[in-house]
């Protein structure tokens, strides 16, 4: 093959070496550069086995027929436009086929239902996977609202069950529920002073709020707020945190000292959460 055609220089070194063994098999040795940049030797041993199949004489003749009609002049072999291989289907023959099928289907359904309950229902009182109204700890843990407020990690706004129950008929959007009085938080949010807040990025995933408060920023005075941004479903940290200091000076000091420093094998990046004017 290579004798008759001139070999392009680029292909020359790719020509595999072929050795014909005594038993009629071939050994092909080729070299290749792998992903690590190392040259690897590939040895393939190939044995040709010819399987002879006897077919009806007429069938063999028909295989040689030329194509006609819409297929006139098309190349031999199946055309992917008209012939495809479908997805695998199963045919399980069994006299009680119907029952087996039903069982399989029910299993599937129950599995889906299970998944749904795990994802969808979460008790606001105890966090279990049942409806809040059916919580067995309802009486011992108290009402969902107050419990939720007590759990509030921020703790910035004083929790007052009286506030939330003050306007019982009032609609509170879902994302504000559990906080002490939706509107109050809204107003507070607007007024919140972000001038002492820093944004910390490139934080190790394993770092939690406690570590921020008592380890990383311990030297810069007590933190008013330390929040790590987490994935809502998995609860994994996104490597971003917001920390609010008591004073702007403390925040500035932290920014200067810690920006670019390593913490838990990652180099921290600190910046003002709001661009300074």
């Amino acid at each position: 093959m290579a004798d008759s055609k001139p070999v392009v220089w680029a292909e020359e070194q790719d020509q595999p070496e072929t050795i014909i063994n005594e038993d009629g098999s071939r050994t092909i040795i080729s070299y290749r550069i792998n992903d690590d940049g190392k040259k690897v030797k590939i040895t393939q041993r190939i044995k040709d086995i010819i399987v002879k199949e006897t077919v009806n004489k007429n069938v063999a003749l028909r295989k040689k027929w030329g194509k006609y009609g819409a297929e006139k002049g098309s190349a031999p072999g199946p055309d992917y436009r008209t012939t495809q291989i479908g997805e695998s289907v199963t045919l399980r023959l069994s006299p009680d086929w119907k029952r087996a099928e039903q069982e399989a289907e029910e299993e599937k359904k129950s599995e889906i239902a299970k998944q749904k309950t795990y994802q969808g229902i979460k008790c606001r009182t105890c966090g279990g996977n049942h409806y809040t109204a059916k919580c067995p700890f309802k009486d011992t843990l108290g009402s969902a609202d107050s419990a939720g407020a007590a759990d509030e990690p921020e703790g910035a706004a004083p929790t007052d069950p009286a506030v939330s129950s003050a306007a019982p008929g009032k609609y509170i959007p879902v994302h504000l529920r559990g906080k002490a009085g939706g509107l109050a938080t809204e107003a507070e949010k607007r007024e919140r002073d972000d001038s002492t807040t820093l944004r910390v990025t490139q934080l190790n995933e394993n770092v939690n709020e406690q570590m921020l408060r008592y380890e990383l920023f311990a030297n810069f005075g007590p933190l008013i707020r330390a929040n790590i941004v987490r994935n809502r479903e998995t609860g994994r940290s996104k490597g971003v945190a917001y920390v609010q200091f008591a004073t702007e000076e403390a925040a500035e000091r932290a920014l200067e000292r810690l920006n670019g420093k390593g913490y838990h094998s990652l180099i921290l990046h600190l910046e003002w959460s709001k661009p300074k004017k």
Partner: protein
Amino acid sequence: MRPLLLKGHERSLTQVKYNREGDLIFTVAKDKEASIWFSFNGERLGTFIGHGGTIWSIDVDKETFLSATGSADFTAKLWRVETGETVFTFPLDTPVRRVEFNVANDKLLTVTDEVMGFKGSITIFKLNYDDIYNQDTTPVLVVHTKEGFERVTVAGWSYLDKYIIAGHRDGTISKIDAQTGELIDSVKVHDGLVTDLQFSEDRTYFITSSKDKISKILDVDTLKVLKVYETDAPLNSAAITPVKNFVVLGGGQEARDVTTTSANQGKFEARFFHKIFEDEIGRVKGHFGPLNYIAVHPKGTSYASGGEDGYVRVHEFEKSYYDFKYDVEKTAEATANSKLNASDDEE
């Protein structure tokens, strides 16, 4: 098993057939061309071009030399399978719903529709194999639909070409003498239109399928119902498998109701029943619409189904298909074997 998907038609399939050796598959649809495929790899050999309307039916002779098609353009045509050329055109009064070569390979049966004041009929032409381009257009036999009978939807030749078995619109099956055209017997076995009628290998019994969701096996000689297979969807086709004692039924929700139902409610599955025990033993999913026709490889190694969705799916049977046996079959075999061994020992 991974089926071969043959997409050679733009509209719903009307009939699918294997030739005698099973190496070619012939498919026709509501578009105007018939397609011929190699069954082992799904390669299309070619198409028959020439009809001016829906092709309702196709058949191929025993030597895979000529093929016949029946179309809604009021003609039945003969084609040379090797070259795809039109050999002859038989003009008829109404659309042709079925064509079938007889066992002796010298006659062609056509079933014509009942439209425009014409009563449907079974028309039989004599075939001239010495000069295939010159056929006699005067039929050797015309069997008009008798008084009191509804139109014939399907028909076929029994063993030795002795009778013609016809299925009617009202579910009646009738037996007609193939020489004289005389009505011998008729029974009403279905409550709906008979959609398909396929014979066993030796043509001594046949299977019918009907819109009444039931499929039945009848004996040719006595027209007695031998087996009944009940399903939950209107049936369009039924086939008997050689080698294994199964039948394959296909159908599904009516084409006009398809858009209002989801695919898994439409019952668009090929259903496998045990021929003897009449139990449903399995299903094959795949089509997105009703199955319009089912054909089984003459050696029982695969089956092809043509659907309303325009696809032909060819399924090669797996080992588990051949291995499947009822417990009673297994025990019967085991006892037979042990008896054989015992008698050997005595000798």
